């Protein structure tokens, strides 16, 4: 019998569906960290991100027969988290959503993170802050491509948009990110 750790995602899904529902635990463990980080792209709150994650894994389990094992499981589960997070944002209708508006960007202080101790930490924090200032439509493909290291084709499947749009958003997102870094973090 195969060790579940040796199986690909898609093989593991087939095992869960056909043989042992309990093996779903391995899928959760494989993706928990990556998806929590991805969910944080939207909600910026670990507890909310955990709720999003739990709902997403439950929905994925309920709809596991709807997954086509000829496709990539990772794209499918990322898509579910994306949908859950968007629903969460809509449901809460609070500052998380407002952060994406240019008006909110205008009033944000540039003095955040003044107490960083090392250059490395400061750079990381600066990038995180700058990313958070990006509108979600640009932030999401950038995070998927650069932080989650997903391919363009996977991003197409996760965000459900044509490959040309993904490319455009990554390109524009980078340009915007550069501008934000220059505007908010330029040395005095």
């Amino acid at each position, binding site marked *: 019998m195969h060790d579940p750790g040796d199986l690909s995602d898609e093989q593991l899904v087939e095992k869960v569906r056909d043989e042992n529902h*309990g093996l779903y635990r391995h899928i*959760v463990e494989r993706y*928990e960290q990556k998806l929590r980080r991805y969910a944080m792209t939207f909600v910026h709150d670990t507890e909310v991100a955990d709720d999003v994650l*739990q709902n997403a*894994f*439950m929905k994925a389990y*309920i709809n596991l027969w709807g997954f086509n094992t000829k496709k990539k499981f990772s794209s499918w589960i990322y898509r579910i988290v994306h949908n859950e997070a968007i629903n969460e944002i809509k449901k809460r209708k609070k500052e998380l959503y407002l952060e994406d508006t240019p008006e909110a960007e205008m009033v944000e202080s540039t003095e955040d993170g003044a107490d960083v101790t090392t250059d490395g930490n400061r750079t990381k924090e600066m990038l995180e802050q700058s990313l958070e200032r990006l509108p979600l439509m640009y932030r999401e493909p950038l995070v998927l491509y650069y932080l989650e290291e997903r391919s363009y084709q996977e991003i197409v499947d996760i965000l459900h948009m*044509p490959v040309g749009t993904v490319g455009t958003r990554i390109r524009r997102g980078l340009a915007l990110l550069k501008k934000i870094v220059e505007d908010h973090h330029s040395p005095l």
Partner: protein
Amino acid sequence: MNDRRSLADKITQSINEHKVKMHPKVYFTLGSGMLGIGLAASMLAAAFFCGVTLFRLRMHQPFDFLGAPKGFEAFIGNMPWIPIILALAGIIAGTWIMRKYDFSYRHAFIGIAGGFVSSLLVFGIVIDAVGLPERAGESTLMRPFVEQRFSNDTWLIGVANDVSDDRFNLAVPRGDVIHVYFRNNTVIEPPIPLQEFEWVRVIGEWNDETFDADVLFHELPPRGVGHIMRFQIPIER
């Protein structure tokens, strides 16, 4: 107090306690089947009603009425509104269902919608060309969608006969014969004399049992007229 169990533990417990259950395979198979049937049905309906719309536009040419005196009412009365609405409903439903399919997001929506509408128009032209709307007019079920009125308060469509300088008889579908009188200022488009058994459209007004013509359009008999109209022109020899 916070639940400190890991996410994997919580989910596994929910699965073991049957708080969450996997939908069976048949649920998704049926769902895909229904989606496919819905898409096919909406495409067929949209293509058929595109065909009927083209057929009726060709039969009555409502746009010709525009610009003529009292032409707007004739235009409104001759436009095939119900087939247009049904064709649009089919297009909207089909496009909506297509967006549910996996492949759709990989392409620009405008391209999918454009391709869908273009293919329906081509099907519509083919359906009209092979005479399907006329045949559908034979069916009691489909007749209300295919059939059109051929007379109204301000306009008539039919075949002229018994033509004289000041009047003619107009045989309208379903066998009625209406006496139409020219006025001094009746406009004839194009301005050539009216021939016996010519297909015409007339805009004007009723004067008791007769009709006074303001504008008369010469027409070629539309293809398929014999199927749908059961026309009986009273020929007196």
